[in-house]
């Protein structure tokens, strides 16, 4: 019986463990120095804000692991001895493995800012980061967050719930504009401001200034402005956590390099999730994708391979989601910050400026390439199908009712969107496919 050891109990590692258990009778051990049990990393913010307790963000009850014969070890792996297939741990005896899966996650990116190690300066990724933040925000009146991505806006929201005034430094002209197109970026920038966050665009952190006790007291921006603060959030992204691989034959680039089977350069060692860099990324995909869904999919895939059902990692159409304060965001396919050659777009925004829809399509064929949607919920299954079936935007417009995933009784935006679409004159006028009336909805299919 083979012993599969997984380092990391995040979504990637745990998904792999669960699926290996389903597919094999291997002995499975998951090692993590972060927490005893798997938790949802994306939900840490809700624990901080008091929406949930830590126990609520554990997706499985504690008895689950023993019942499914998945061994959990809370320890840090100090060294991987590749030649004799052994792991040296901080606490326990060394462990032998037959197959090793690296699900090491990410670490906060820092760029060598002066003062980045001062007290009160931190990123937000791990459980320990959240605990540290709990300590660091005590008596804080003013915080500066630097780096306009998802973690930055989360941190802003978290700090606001503690009555902290937040100044948010963003390098681009709009929030998250290295990912979002300008209109969407502006919409979210406005929303962030409406919540009382001071958003400073085109502003970068230059230096963090400490007091005599080694605690942050201000930051200096690239415009020479000094902002007093007692807390600094470093949220300029994350990068693969590959420190453990130093001095091992496992090849790394930005992340741990893997082939389509998620195999590293060393036999019987696989890597999944945030820490991975694909040698050949799939079409329309990036080589490093540090998102929950990718971790889950890689975990599921590698489980098949190590259980004897060799399976290449083939992610489908890109999708992602997030929430910025009150506005939900979903994206399907590729609707990035800049249009590629031969692409065109359709953008609709509602009167309140809190909902919008972006369609990116091929100019020539009108085939849909990507969707961004804010403040509206769309059906993943329908979007995915449209993208795969190469549907045109005319088809999409005609079938807008089908994609609606908002709760019942929400005001429908379809007609407004369609009106604007027809006015834009991309082609022949589109009529919305007859929506089911109340009665036919009740009785019919």
């Amino acid at each position, binding site marked *: 019986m083979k012993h599969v050891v997984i380092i990391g109990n995040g979504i990637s590692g745990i998904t792999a463990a669960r699926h290996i258990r389903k597919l094999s009778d291997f002995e499975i051990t998951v090692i993590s120095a972060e927490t005893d049990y798997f938790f949802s990393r*994306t939900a840490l913010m809700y624990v901080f804000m008091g929406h949930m307790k830590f126990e609520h963000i554990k997706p499985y009850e504690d008895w689950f692991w023993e019942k499914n014969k998945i061994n959990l070890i809370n320890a840090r792996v100090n060294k991987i001895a590749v030649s004799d297939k052994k792991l040296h741990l901080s606490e326990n005896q060394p462990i032998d493995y037959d197959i090793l899966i690296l699900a090491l996650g990410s670490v906060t990116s820092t760029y060598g800012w002066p003062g980045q190690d001062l007290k009160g300066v931190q990123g937000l990724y791990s459980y320990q980061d959240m605990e540290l933040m709990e300590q660091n925000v005590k008596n804080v009146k003013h915080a500066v967050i630097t780096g306009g991505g998802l973690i930055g806006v989360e941190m802003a929201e978290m700090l606001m719930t503690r009555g902290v005034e937040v100044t948010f430094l963003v390098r681009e002209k709009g929030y998250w504009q290295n990912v979002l197109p300008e209109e969407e970026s502006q919409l979210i920038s406005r929303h962030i401001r409406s919540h009382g966050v001071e958003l400073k665009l085109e502003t970068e952190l230059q230096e963090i200034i400490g007091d005599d006790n080694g605690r942050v007291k201000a930051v200096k921006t690239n415009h020479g402005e000094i902002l007093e603060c007692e807390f600094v959030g470093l949220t300029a992204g994350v990068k693969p956590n590959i420190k453990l691989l130093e001095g091992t034959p496992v090849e790394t680039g930005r992340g741990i390099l893997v082939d389509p089977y998620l195999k590293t350069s060393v036999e019987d060692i696989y890597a999944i999730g945030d820490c991975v860099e694909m040698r050949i990324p799939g079409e329309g995909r990036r080589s490093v994708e540090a998102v929950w869904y990718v971790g889950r999919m890689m975990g599921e895939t590698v489980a098949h391979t190590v259980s004897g059902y060799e399976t290449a990692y083939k992610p489908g159409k890109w999708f992602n989601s997030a929430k910025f304060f009150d506005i939900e965001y979903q994206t399907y396919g590729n609707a990035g910050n800049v249009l590629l050659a031969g692409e065109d777009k359709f953008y609709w925004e509602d009167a309140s400026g809190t909902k919008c829809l972006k369609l990116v399509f091929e100019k020539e064929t009108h085939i849909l390439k990507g969707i961004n949607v804010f403040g509206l919920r769309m059906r993943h299954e329908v979007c995915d199908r449209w993208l795969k079936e190469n549907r045109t935007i005319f088809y999409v417009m005609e079938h807008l009712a089908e994609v609606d995933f908002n709760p019942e009784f929400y005001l429908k935006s379809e007609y407004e969107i369609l009106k604007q679409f027809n006015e834009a004159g991309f082609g022949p006028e589109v009529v919305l496919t007859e929506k089911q009336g109340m009665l036919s909805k009740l009785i019919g299919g």
Partner: protein
Amino acid sequence: MVHSNMEYIRKTGLIVFITGIIIFLASFFLAKYSYTPETVDIHVYETEQNMLLKKVMEPEEGKIISWNISYIKRVSDAMARVNIIQLETYSIKDADLDNIISISRELKFSLSSIDSVFEGSSREAVFKRESFKAYGSWLDGRVFDSETDMKGVLSGISDDISHYEIAGKKGFDRYRTKDLKYALTKAASVGPVRDHPILFILLTYGLCIIGAVLYLLPGIKELPGIKNNHIFNNQMTNRGWLGILTGSFLIIFYILLYYQPEYMTNWIIMVDPVSMSLKGLEAGRFFLYGFIYTLAILVMGVRMMIKYRGNPYQQMRTGSVMFFQTAFAFLIPEILLRLNKPYFDFKNIWPLDYDFFFDNSLNQLLDSGTLGIFMLGWGISLIIIGVPVMVYFFGKRWYCSWVCGCGGLAETLGDPFRQLSDKSLRAWKTERVIIYSVLVFAVVMTAGVLYTYWSGSSQFAGLNTYSVREAYGFWIGAAFAGVVGTGFYPLMGNRVWCRFGCPLAAYLGIVQRFKSRFRITTNGGQCISCGNCSTYCEMGIDVRWYAQRGQNIIRSSCVGCGICSAVCPRGVLKLETGNEKGRFGKPVLLGNESLLDSR
């Protein structure tokens, strides 16, 4: 500046609200008790008991008693004293029995012997004759083996007469004692609440409502979006001291309401004017309860409207429960009473409405002409047609979170506590055992009641149907639905009764599970296992378990409140009705094409 103004209004509201609560609590003690014979005249219409009770209570005349405990004790002692006197007067004595035996030839009991033992036309003799004949006629002509044997049987009859006939007709049996304790205490209450009930309504309910509204309204100024900030840091909503205190208060309130209403007479006196204006009668304990209940749903309904104002589904169903409580549960039944029609809640459905088939309810409906027959037909149609048809099209939510009174309170007053429900697998297992047991209990109890109604016999399947219905009323109707159901909001969440106890929810749930178009759809592969849905599920459903494996959520207990969908940060959940085919769905997470072949 605006922000601090809002905080100021909120704080003022809180102070006003707490002031109202304090005055309400204080009003409990703001009465003295003064006995007058008139109080007995109003409530004790049986001549003998009336005279005796007045005689026993005579020393109390003119006294002012400061504590209800003390006054209630005097009243119940007096009633017990009357019972002793009546027992002394009317009970059949040992000597009487010996007399009967001695005149019975060869130990053969003859009913005619009664006439000679209890002769004369005195009240006592007449009563003894008649009651012995009524209770002992079945013995006529019986021959006994020995005197001891005969004495034993005869004293059994004498005991029955003491227990039932004398207590019931000449004294105060336990039901009458309970009613009179309450009625006489209420009638004897004097003090500021009695003198100025409307003033006290304003000082208690009035201040509470104003305070609550001041506290809630500034929320409109905030951006829409559900804010569950600090719910688990709050003493009220995370089983802190405030939650435990509130739960304890509610539990005590319910215990008094159901079992010892004589202690809360001052609160009932306070709402007398409201009751008078609605139905022309003094308030009873259940009027007080209905009044507070409706106010709670309305005020906390406003809170729901504000909290979920970005979410029309939540607002619609909150408006719906506010309407059904106010109109159907509170006003219409009271107005029916004023029109001399049967008290009837048109939206209450058996077996939640467990006394729907009790003989007195049935008789009342049958005696009330066309309207009564319509009510009976309506009630039965809801059970056999309304429930399955509506659940088929909409799911059980049409009732549980849109119409029901228990649901109405849970969804408004209870909303701040929804996160306290237990999500563990163990809790789910326990829930299934308990709720279906209650359903079986309700069905057996009602079958017994109907059997007795038609056959006249109180024995059904070896059980006394009166004891069974009484046990159901005490343990399920009052203790479970009331004391535990609401008292435990701050301890176990707002749906303890609905989840573990309600037999109607069990029935609706069976239909929802097996024959309905309702489901909660999981959106492709978008779940991030954050747990907001499970945490805020008041029914303790581990919604995430399904969502994170890409499976539709179909559970008999789901009341369709829609909060899981509302709090989901990624738009993963949608309450839907649709074709039954494929309703359960396959657990497939979209996005990974690697495994398409192996699937």
